[in-house]
């Protein structure tokens, strides 16, 4: 059929994503636990599989065979629907993302970024309906608080994205990365305040610490996830980590240059192209050196396998760079492979760095109280992002007038960002002076 011939690739990719992404997300959870352990001076999961590598599989099996408990008075339809909505929105958003110039499920969608942001905003319903379906007063309050937090920070995140889009001039994901390549500078450097705002807002969007009060375990109001157990709970968990990946991908695409190598247009820095294969080779060598030091036989075999994989990856990454050097005639044929493979590597590296930052912040900072959280969003981030849009717009007009391109545009945008930051801090200080935000708790001194 005509339809199948045209659309078989996205269909297959879509199915592959739905099948494979839960596994990937499971391993992201394992990575988080290992990083948490590293920051807390311990080792993390080590028992299940060598170095805990089979832990996600064990967790998945356990969650699947767990008893499915539905509260008595809960609304069956909504109880079933809520986690499905969350996961559906998150997975659909993945469809709009591009890992490399050729790896995109929904190719060349004109509204790329907006599609991703809009669809992932649908996940809010999953939270609200989940809290309601639990038929518990406290779950409902927790769900409403969580969605209020999401909606508030979505505005700030959207405005920050608008700043980046001002430079890009288009919503199409491939065109945005092309624009960063043409300008020779990443938009995160051009608009650092916007990048910072998006960073903070995205931590709040995904309900991660320090903004995770609605789902914290030590708080009184049990979060919206309480009544969901087993597979339903794992769907929510999957949705949360997929949202993290989506948000990191959006930030990478718009602010960190997507799949571009740092300094992709300067020819004399082309030796950076050797960095990926050298990095993988170095990791492989490190694994080889640690092999004799492993306590158990199976862990030694495992280290050897990992080293082999790293070397294979190094070869795959090195080939598109070495082949044109050896035989210049093949340069044009190899180029798409180079773009695809190296692009994929840089993109995944940047997304991983962003997610590592999320985890780092989670294990370092305590939690914000809910009113402090909302105050931060409404009184600081939203004014900051709106003022930033206005000032960056003015900076762009100045840049166009004086023909500032690429790195020279920094001369216009950096002052704009600094002024925006100062104005926002000023607004915050004024507001804090206006309301003495404290001492709600001094009861009358009955013993004086």
């Amino acid at each position: 059929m005509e339809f199948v011939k045209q659309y078989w690739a996205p269909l297959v990719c879509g199915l592959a994503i739905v099948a494979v992404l839960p596994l990937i997300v499971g391993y992201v959870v394992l990575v988080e636990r290992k990083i948490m352990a590293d920051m807390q001076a311990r080792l993390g999961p080590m028992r299940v599989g060598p170095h805990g590598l089979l832990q996600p599989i064990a967790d998945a099996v356990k969650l699947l065979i767990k008893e499915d408990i539905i509260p008595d008075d809960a609304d069956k339809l909504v109880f079933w629907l809520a986690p499905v909505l969350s996961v559906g929105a998150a997975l659909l958003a993945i469809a709009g993302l591009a890992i490399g110039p050729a790896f995109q499920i929904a190719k060349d969608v004109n509204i790329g970024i907006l599609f991703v942001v809009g669809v992932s905003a649908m996940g809010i319903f999953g939270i609200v309906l989940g809290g309601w379906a639990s038929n518990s007063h406290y779950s409902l309050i927790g769900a409403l608080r969580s969605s209020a937090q999401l909606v508030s920070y979505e505005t700030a995140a959207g405005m920050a994205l608008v700043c980046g889009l001002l430079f890009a001039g288009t919503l199409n994901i491939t065109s945005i990365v092309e624009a960063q390549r043409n300008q020779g500078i990443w938009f995160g450097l051009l608009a650092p305040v916007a990048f910072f705002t998006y960073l903070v807002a995205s931590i709040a969007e995904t309900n991660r610490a320090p903004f995770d009060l609605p789902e914290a375990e030590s708080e009184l109001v049990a979060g919206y996830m309480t009544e969901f157990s087993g597979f339903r709970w794992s769907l929510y968990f999957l949705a949360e980590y997929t949202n993290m990946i989506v948000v990191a991908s959006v930030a990478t695409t718009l602010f960190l240059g997507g799949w571009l190598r740092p300094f992709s247009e300067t020819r004399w820095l082309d030796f950076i192209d050797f960095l990926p294969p050298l990095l993988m080779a170095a990791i492989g060598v490190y694994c080889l050196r640690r092999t004799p030091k492993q306590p158990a036989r199976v862990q030694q075999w495992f280290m050897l396998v990992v080293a082999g994989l790293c070397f294979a990856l190094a070869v795959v990454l090195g080939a598109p760079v070495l082949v044109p050097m050896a035989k210049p005639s093949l340069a044009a044929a190899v180029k798409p492979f180079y773009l695809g493979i190296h692009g994929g590597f840089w993109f995944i590296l940047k997304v991983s760095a962003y997610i590592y930052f999320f985890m780092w912040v989670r294990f370092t900072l305590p939690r914000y109280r809910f009113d402090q959280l909302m105050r931060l969003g409404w009184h600081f981030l939203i004014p900051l992002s709106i003022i930033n849009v206005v000032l960056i717009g003015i900076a762009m007009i100045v840049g166009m007038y004086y023909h500032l391109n690429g790195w020279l545009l920094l001369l216009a945008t950096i002052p704009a960002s600094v002024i925006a930051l100062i104005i926002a801090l000023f607004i915050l200080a004024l507001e804090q002076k206006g309301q003495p935000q404290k001492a709600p708790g001094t009861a009358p001194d009955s013993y004086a």
Partner: protein
Amino acid sequence: MLDQAIFYFFAGVAVLSAILTVTRRNVVHSAIFLITALLATAGIFLELRAEFLFIVQIILYVGGIMVLFVFVIMLVNLDVAVRQLQFARQKWVGLLISLALAAQVGLMLWSSRKMPGQGMRVLNAVPADKLPPNSEEVAKSLFSSYLLPFEIASVLLLVAMIGAVVMAKKRT
């Protein structure tokens, strides 16, 4: 062919969801079916190659307005409303009026002897990737030919927001 199939699918979902919205007893179920109806409408927009409207429908209508609807539904004590059977008395009047409206529409269609839109320029003559990008066209027209209505609409929204904030503050 594909266009028609997609259109009829989304249109059917929209009509079905709309019917379910008004016939459910449970308010949250109504809200969910309203969301489905809005999503189906967005699908129809997408099928008509209006991708900007599609995503704006989702972001604003579903992601903004329906979220607020659902908030209010969950915060307001609805036990009282549920206990009273509210549309028992108006069933027959409603049926009468809808029949009258349907008769009017049928009369219009019959008198013109064609379906709405028949004979107009067909959209799928132009392949989708040759169309100018939707968002830019909308933006260009909003800032050139439709500038005045745009500004008036934004002022209206600003006034509404300020009014809401003032009214909320007055109570506390």
